[in-house]
């Protein structure tokens, strides 16, 4: 199976947010009660019932007084996925044959460590503390359908296809900067940018925190061989959050 990917072109997006609703419809996610905070952007952040959202960025300049960018954001389906590296529960997060990072709530133990391992601040947790995030419509793409958000997008701002094809498609005039081609082993969500990624709200060089890489490569195998489960879990907690007490961690959230 060839790896699949989404290509996001913010300049083609009209901010209709059909993608936000199509995702909710396919995944049967209830609405959140929101208020207007002086922006069209709503809900203000991803949540357990919101797997993707449009970020609105006003960027007025001499050349374009009303430049307004609409940036679709969701899980990046990293090849080198920080969430999977740190997750101590086998099968809670898994890769599909299309390259999607999907989840199984029945296997998730609710430790929330994946949130610490993700460079893009994606994982959210439902009322039972189970992982909730975009799964690249893993249930649709295995049947040969495109993801709901890509299917509904009226402008082609979200395109779905073979990752290699998407990469060659994205090399169109004016869209020189392809984001995500090599980062973290190659992202499953690529962006065609006209400007620096940070203007669109993305890190120039996304990276998994060092301590999580260390955990994955050195401590995780050691811990499982030599230590009991409880010791391994507290060691892991230390690696992810540092020497904080549980209450402090809660307060920070």
């Amino acid at each position, binding site marked *: 199976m060839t790896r699949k990917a989404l290509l996001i072109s913010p300049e083609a997006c009209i901010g209709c947010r059909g993608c936000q609703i199509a995702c909710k419809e396919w995944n049967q996610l209830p609405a959140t009660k929101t*208020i207007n905070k*002086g922006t069209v952007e709503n809900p203000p952040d991803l949540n357990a019932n919101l797997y993707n959202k449009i970020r609105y960025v006003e960027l007025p300049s001499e050349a374009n007084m009303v430049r307004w960018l609409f940036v679709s954001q969701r899980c990046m389906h990293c090849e080198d996925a920080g969430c999977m590296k740190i997750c101590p529960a086998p099968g809670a997060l898994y890769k599909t044959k299309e390259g999607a990072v999907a989840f199984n709530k029945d296997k998730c133990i609710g430790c929330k460590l994946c949130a610490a391992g993700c460079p893009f601040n994606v994982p959210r947790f439902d009322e039972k503390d189970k992982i909730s995030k975009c799964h690249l419509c893993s249930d649709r793409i295995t049947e040969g359908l495109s993801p709901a958000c890509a299917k509904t997008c009226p402008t082609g701002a979200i395109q779905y296809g073979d990752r290699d094809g998407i990469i060659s498609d994205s090399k169109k005039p004016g869209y020189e900067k392809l984001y995500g081609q090599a980062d973290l082993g190659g992202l499953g969500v690529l962006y065609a940018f006209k400007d620096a990624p940070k203007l669109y709200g993305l890190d120039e060089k996304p990276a998994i925190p060092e301590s999580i890489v260390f955990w994955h490569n050195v401590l995780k195998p050691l811990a499982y061989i030599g230590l009991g489960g409880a010791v391994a879990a507290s060691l892991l907690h230390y690696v992810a959050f540092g020497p904080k007490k549980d209450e402090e961690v809660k307060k920070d959230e």
Partner: protein
Amino acid sequence: MNKKHRINPTIKLFYGVEGPNDKPKKGGGLPEDVFVSGDAKFPYVATTYRVSEHWQTGVLTRHLPWMQELMPQQFVEISKELAAEKGVKNGDKINVSSARGKVWAIAMVTDRFKPFKIMNSTVHQVGLPWCFGWQYPEDGSGGDSSNLLTPTIGDANTMIPETKAFMVNVEKA
């Protein structure tokens, strides 16, 4: 501006008021509508529009929680310049009033609205949707329709109700 005319002399007044001293002849209009264009109480130009999340006044779409999540409340877009003049911050609740009525709206301070320079004076414009109001959400948190502000006059050329350009005041709520 031409001091003799307080309103565009070619607009259609639907209820048949010809001069400043006439009372409305038929029901359906307010004498205020005739006089507001040059009224210092309402110094700002306003316009209305829809949002893509709601259909017309939103009577159908405001029942849908997913649509409400995206577009929950009446807002008014105002320029950074006017916001500074009025001491309004992004996200503040402000009142928009005309000779006809008053609605509250959440201020969206934006570059999409800019003051006009017209005959050496600065003219501010604000804009608000008319997709909120009656019945839903039941707790009234959505606000009212900006159609409460618009006059009952007809465009001079087409006689279509001229609800896209009228005069208002904005104040902190």
